[in-house]
């Protein structure tokens, strides 16, 4: 039987301002990924739910730096190719078994094969060994600057060994959803709701000031219920009438909700990078760099931002491929190109490139993408191009883009502004639907991997960013922050970019 609209009832009896224990928080998610498996499913909704349940060896702190999570100690060999990780003792899985190095090895193995980011790491990994129950040794073929960050990825989640082997490339089922996080899976009612329960044997870290996903986690809530509600207006209506306490409504609702005294709006750390994906297939209009530059010139990024409905305080009008808060990867190189806007010249350049028709694949699930598509269509039509729009749900767009690679010229997306290494930006990968390939970029990636320290790495990042605005593999429209709307009873939520709910509590008053 369904859960109805349980009014959060704080059972604890502590003081007015401090955290209180108890209550069930209801959060809405737009759709059900069918699994909490963050290794297989890269969807945002999967991360939101899974981050309460699973943990990785490392975790990103509020500055997007990797910090140890399940490990206690990290030793790196001088040639930066052998990492010896000492695991934290006394960590138990939700099924009661204790974490050991075998679990880690098996989980990493799975991470390497199933996860997109894992595959990148795997290329450099020679071996993962477990010499004793609390030690894991990772041997690399060459130095890899981003390794710890990559191991901090949610996809590198740690599972019990049997489950990791059994699941393979399959998404984890409900019964296999066994992690080490502060919450464990209660009930998975596919399509309707997922309930998490507090995991009482959770062993928390002591560091309370790391922020982000790292450090101490405390499960104040008795439980969390994720309710799948697709319709934006339903989401807002439910929020205002107290049916649920936490949602991520569309941009347009921001100002409406802001006016509601019962609701707090919290920006999410990090942010997203809104991008026009260009197809580099030979049959595409954008196989020619001239056409790509022309497109950049014709796009009025301000209009794009405006039409998305994003509130001004959530906007960052930069062309960087990562969010400003993700300091290690944020670069302002090439801003002049980003800021240039000249439809007349664009028209000429399109003409020289011999482009007169643009075929757009627009994902219909996201209102802002539909909006960008519409504005883009108008801008292109205004300079005399023919625009053909096809609009499908995201899955279909992906299928079309992959199955008929020459049938489209551009599509739209937004990516996380908080990845840990440039090669993880999907539209820079050759395997991505855009099929972008650039030897210079590959060399830069290699240089990045080999970077000795953060400042060396940052320099490479700047060069990559510059290349991005020179060769334009895709066009960054602008950066923005997402926000969540919280009922005023929700306290302690720090706006972490996974929307993880540990350290959050419900205030009954």
């Amino acid at each position, binding site marked *: 039987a369904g859960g109805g609209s349980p009014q959060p009832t704080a059972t604890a009896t502590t003081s007015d301002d401090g955290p209180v224990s108890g209550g069930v928080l209801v959060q809405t998610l737009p*759709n*059900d990924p069918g699994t909490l498996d963050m290794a297989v*499913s*890269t969807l945002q909704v999967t991360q939101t739910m899974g981050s309460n349940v699973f943990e990785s060896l490392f975790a990103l702190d509020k500055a997007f730096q990797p910090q140890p999570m399940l490990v206690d100690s990290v030793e790196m060999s001088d040639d930066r190719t052998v990492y010896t990780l000492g695991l934290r003792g006394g960590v138990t899985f939700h099924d009661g078994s204790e974490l050991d190095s075998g679990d880690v090895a098996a989980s990493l193995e799975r991470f390497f094969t*199933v996860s997109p980011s894992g595959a990148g790491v795997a290329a450099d990994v020679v071996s993962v060994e477990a010499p004793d129950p609390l030690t894991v040794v990772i041997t690399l073929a060459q130095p890899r600057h981003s390794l710890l960050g990559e191991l901090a990825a949610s996809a590198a989640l740690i599972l019990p060994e049997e489950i990791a082997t059994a699941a393979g490339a399959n998404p984890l089922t409900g019964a296999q959803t066994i992690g080490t996080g502060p919450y464990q899976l209660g009930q998975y009612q596919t*399509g309707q709701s997922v309930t998490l329960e507090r995991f009482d044997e959770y062993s928390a870290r002591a560091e309370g000031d790391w922020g982000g996903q790292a450090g101490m986690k405390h499960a104040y809530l008795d439980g969390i219920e994720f309710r799948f509600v697709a319709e934006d207006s339903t989401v807002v*209506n439910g929020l205002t009438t107290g049916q649920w306490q936490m949602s991520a409504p569309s941009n347009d609702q921001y100002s409406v909700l802001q006016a509601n005294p019962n609701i707090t709006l919290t920006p999410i750390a990090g942010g997203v990078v809104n991008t026009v994906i260009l197809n580099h297939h030979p049959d595409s209009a954008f196989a020619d760099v001239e056409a790509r530059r022309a497109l950049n010139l014709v796009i009025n990024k301000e209009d794009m931002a405006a039409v998305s409905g994003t509130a001004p305080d959530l906007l960052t009008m930069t062309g960087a491929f990562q969010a400003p808060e993700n300091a290690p990867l944020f670069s302002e190189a090439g801003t002049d190109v980003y800021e240039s806007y000249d439809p007349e010249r664009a028209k000429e350049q399109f003409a020289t490139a011999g482009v007169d028709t643009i075929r757009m694949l627009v994902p219909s699930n996201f209102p802002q993408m539909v909006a960008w598509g519409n504005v883009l269509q108008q801008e292109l039509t205004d300079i005399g191009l023919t625009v053909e729009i096809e609009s499908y749900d995201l899955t279909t767009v992906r299928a079309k883009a992959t199955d008929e690679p020459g049938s489209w010229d551009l599509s739209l997306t937004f990516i996380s502004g908080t990845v840990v290494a440039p090669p993880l930006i999907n539209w820079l990968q050759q395997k991505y639907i855009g099929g972008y390939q650039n030897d210079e970029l590959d060399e830069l990636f290699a240089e990045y991997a080999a970077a000795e320290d953060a400042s060396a790495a940052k320099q490479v990042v700047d060069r990559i960013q510059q290349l991005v605005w020179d060769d334009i593999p895709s066009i960054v429209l602008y950066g923005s922050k997402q926000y969540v709307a919280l009922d005023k009873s929700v306290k302690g939520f720090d706006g972490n970019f996974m929307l993880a709910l540990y350290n959050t509590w419900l205030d009954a008053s």
Partner: protein
Amino acid sequence: MLGLILRRLRDLAIVLVLVGTAIFFIVRVIPGDAALAVAGDQATPEQVEAIREAMGLNVPLWQQYVTWFGQLLVGDFGTSTSFHTPVAPIILSHLLPTVTLALAATVLSIAITVPLSIGVALYPRNWLWRTVNRFTAVGIAVPEFWLALLLVTVFAVTFGAVPVSGWVNPFVDPAAGIPHLILPIVVLMVGQISTFALMLRDNLIGEMLQPYLRTARAKGARERRVFYRHALPNALLPAVTVVGNNLGTLLGGIVVLETIFVIPGLGSLLFQAVSTRDYAIIQGATIVIAIIFVVLNFIVDLIYLLLDPRVRVS
């Protein structure tokens, strides 16, 4: 009579096989599959292929068809790629809200329509007649989803009289469950009542012209008796089939309303399954909807057969 039922059952089976086959192939034509749906935007083709293989989606189409149909015959709808469990119980668990809505809306609509139409047929051209006529004309024309949006805004959001959305099993927890049902049922009833009232009114007026009523009057029956004892039952009889004929519209309305009111019924299951490309569920849910539709129609016909001696005894 029995033979008639058997023949109808045979026709029903043929139709359902056609329905099943049609939906199997329609579903396969939808671009993208479950692997792509679960992998998300960041996955590379290799990873998608790996997931596809793990899910058993790379078997040839005809083989999938044969397997699926074979299993279907023994009541096995296959295994969901998003639930990782057999489809039949999933569908079963989503049946309750859909059926509850359908039945409640139908029963309530009939309960309102019958006295209303009687009033209209008895006293034509008065205010009631005009009001009902206008209501039915508009009621048939109102898109459910739109009406639902407006009613939610007015009654749920502004007045907070009823919940905005959601579902609580009203058989387990009536106090919480029934308020959740009010808006969707009201929306469904608007269409239902309009359709029924229109049909019933026409039937009644048509029946009022029948010669056998003159016979009743010639026997000395008063108008009240002529109406309630003769015209009304005979007008209600064929109206039974209207309930069946209208079932398609009703189910269609429920499918849409389930998404608006976040009701975990067959409709939202279907939508969910389309977005996750869960073939087994799409097929199962569609077939079950078709079965509900066809079987209920069959039952309605059967009731009609049983009630109407003109057809029953022949």
